[in-house]
């Protein structure tokens, strides 16, 4: 998986992307906070204190207590006074009982007010300090979901040529060869090539002309072209490839051997070719391969399964399955908590007590007189013994151990 380009060039912890910096500061910082916490009382429906916060103009107008922003003394602005007021202070906003701003949100608002609260300026123009930048970057990462991309970026065995240099060559080649070559992502040196558009007119000679772009190619589409095994030998030098289309070509098993250097290959399309089960074995070294398409070939289901099994990392899969089960359990617990408001308590809380004899008096227990202690249900003969135990549980530990029911299973969670 490849991280989005604009994150690759940023520091890992902390700069927001150019897109983020280009946004209006009011839209990115102030407005989301107002909409989340304020407009229910200070919005189009209601205007407590004659204050509305649903538009920039209303924000600038202020309310009964005056404007929210003090240009002479930004730190003393009314907005800051309200959100920074101590808890319990009845001037504090949002009021007690309503959801409160997170520390990050307060930090952002504070910075924005002190930076001039200018609704015309973008985030970038206000020159946020590093601490603010990392808050913005973290929020952006969360909203763009790069956290979902848990795998590391694809490696590049070959160093690609610089983007500008390679784009010039690429445009010329695309025109002469009648194919499509375009960059894969902004500010990255990677290219995608689609030669299938030229059909059988594109052959080994034409592929040879692409060699100058070898180290920049990530996606190469040679579907339906006239390349032969000779051409595939050149493809084997393009070791940064992650996607390779070879469908509907005249290739045979021999060609597959030449694909072995392509260590980063994730996708290989061989439909409509002459490959057979025997040829598939050549692909086993390609540890990053995730999808292989073999429709309309002589490969059998068994041959495909054999390849899949040879390439499976069974231990890793088992580890992942265990991790998934553990995470599912965690999610279920959280869902129970959210749905019912009560944590999923361990089963033994309702189970029978762990002891048959009272640890204080030694007499048989009364099952209605129980207490929880260190996750175990302990029964007593009477309330006085229960009270005594609860006052000083340690002194009865030895007796408790002696009275444990030997057959009782302790449901330890």
């Amino acid at each position, binding site marked *: 998986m490849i991280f*989005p380009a604009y994150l690759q060039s940023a520091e890992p912890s902390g700069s927001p992307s150019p897109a983020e910096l*280009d946004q209006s500061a009011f839209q990115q910082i102030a407005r989301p906070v107002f909409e989340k916490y304020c407009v229910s009382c200070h919005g189009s429906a209601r205007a407590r204190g004659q204050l509305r916060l649903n538009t920039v103009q209303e924000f600038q107008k202020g309310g009964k207590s005056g404007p929210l922003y003090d240009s002479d003394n930004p730190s003393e602005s009314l907005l800051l006074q309200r959100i920074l007021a101590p808890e319990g202070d009845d001037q504090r906003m949002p009021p007690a009982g309503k959801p409160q701003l997170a520390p990050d949100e307060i930090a952002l608002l504070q910075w924005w007010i002190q930076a001039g609260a200018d609704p015309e300026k973008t985030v970038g123009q206000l020159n946020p300090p590093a601490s603010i930048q990392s808050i913005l970057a973290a929020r952006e990462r969360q909203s763009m979901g790069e956290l979902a991309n848990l795998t590391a970026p694809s490696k590049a065995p070959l160093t690609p040529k610089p983007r500008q240099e390679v784009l010039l060559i690429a445009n010329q080649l695309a025109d002469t060869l*009648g194919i499509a070559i375009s960059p*894969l*992502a902004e500010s990255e040196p990677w290219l995608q090539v*689609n030669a*299938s*558009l030229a059909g059988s007119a594109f052959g080994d000679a034409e592929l040879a002309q692409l060699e100058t772009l070898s180290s920049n190619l990530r996606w190469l589409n040679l579907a339906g072209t006239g390349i032969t095994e000779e051409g595939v030998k050149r493809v084997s030098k393009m070791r940064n490839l992650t996607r390779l289309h070879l469908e509907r070509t005249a290739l045979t098993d021999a060609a597959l051997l030449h694909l072995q250097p392509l260590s980063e290959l994730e996708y290989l399309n061989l*439909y409509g070719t002459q490959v057979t089960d025997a040829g598939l074995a050549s692909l086993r070294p390609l540890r990053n391969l995730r999808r292989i398409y073999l*429709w309309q070939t002589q490969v059998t289901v068994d041959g495909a399964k054999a390849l899949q099994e040879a390439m499976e990392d069974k231990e890793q899969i088992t580890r992942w399955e265990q991790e998934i089960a553990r995470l599912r359990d965690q999610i279920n617990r959280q869902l129970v908590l959210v749905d019912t408001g009560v944590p999923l308590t361990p089963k033994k809380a309702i189970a029978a007590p762990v002891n048959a004899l009272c640890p204080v008096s030694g007499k048989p227990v009364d099952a209605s007189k129980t207490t929880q202690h260190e996750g175990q249900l302990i029964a007593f003969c009477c309330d006085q013994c229960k009270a005594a135990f609860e006052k000083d549980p340690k002194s009865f530990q030895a007796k408790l151990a002696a009275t444990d029911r030997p057959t009782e299973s302790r449901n330890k969670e």
Partner: protein
Amino acid sequence: MKLLSDLARRQSRRAFLGKAGVAAGRIALASLLFPEILRSAPAPKRERAHPALEGIPHFTPKARNLIYLFMNGAPSQIDLWDYKPKLADLYDSDLPDSIRQGQRLTTMTSGQKRFPIAPSIYQFAPHGQCGTLVSELLPHTAQVVDDLAVIKTVHTEAINHDPAATFILTGNMVPGKPSIGAWLSYGLGSESENLPAFVVMTPRWSAKRDAQALYQRLWGSGFLPSRHQGVALRPKGDPVLFLNNPPGVNAASRRCMLDGLARLNQARFEVSGDPEIQTRIAQYEMAFRMQTSIPDLTDISKEPPSVLDLYGPEVTQPGTFAASALMARRLVERGVRVVQILHREWDHHGDLPRDLPLQCRDVDHACKGLILDLKQRGLLDETLVVWGGEFGRTVYCQGELSRSNYGRDHHPRCYTMWMAGGGIKGGMVYGETDDFSYNIVRDPVHIRDLNATILHCLGIDHRRLSYSFQGLDQRLTGTEPASPIQGILA
């Protein structure tokens, strides 16, 4: 002076003031002051048919093409995807106010005294390894449910067809904005030199009703240069009218004519600087190439019978949804960026049990066929497929309710769409609605978010693809917040 006033008259206002052809506008403005500049202005070189914008994709895409299956009229989610078995006990009871929460009604049901609940008469069952529940009306789609991300919580504000379809397909209820396909054509361009970047098909339908009208603006280019508009292939007869040479005109003479025409248009461009002239030249070139590429596209005689069978029996009948679906796959194979099929008449205000099964039979088999055909060719990894309408349908009955017949009115607050292919996790259901399929309980997806997701899968940050028009950096997702749906992204 005459030269200056001539120039001012011929000046297209858009070229002069607008961003399109801003270079031409600047040259033209300078030429008003210094006429000799015009004569040395560089002639625009021959461009690729569908170039991409500089800097796009913003990040490595997962999908390279989009196939959008738009079910115009709004399919009933309760009868197809959103399984609510408890409604069976509430047959003919009134929709509680606590559920309706003041949702505005259309004029079609606002006069009703009652809003009786109409449970679905169709059976649902779990399918695939993921166990997604699908109605019996979609038996074929149910077989590919392991490749689909079913989103049950799409919502919109629009409650009638025209604004709603305009909203979901162009990003705004107010007409005049470019459609999704136009934005993608503008941003990503297209790889095929011989076919348009954005192709549209409008197959026939089987429900026994007249359908809501479609509007060209649903695939139009809005304020973008008109070369980005969708090209609608005619469902029956010649896909493109007057494409073929009339008797007496052969390809060589056609080419000769076009070259001469291009030189004349170019001369006009150098005088007036109107960028629409460049569009015109490009369209003539595209039409010439389509004279060979369209017959090649529509000739399905070489498709193996096993492939045709995937799409169902109607695939060989031009003008059906199945035929359009096969065309969509062929278009995408040939490098066309966006294909949109608009299937009409899902608007079942009454007689839903009569019409909905007919509509489903139109599309169900072919949807499965399309997914499987793309998949076996390895194209599903690189194609994003989207299915859905402009809003949902109400749980309460419109008109008379009986055990065997009912109708449903429009419902914007929750409905179901599915996505599959490049960048999308298969075999999942996203979001949850309440027991009445009326409100969203978890994970709402505004149609803006849906459009942001489409752009995201194709490598575009929806906040950064914009076009300056009427003083605003216009975007498909508009000015309100939107973000891609993280939960369904692979």
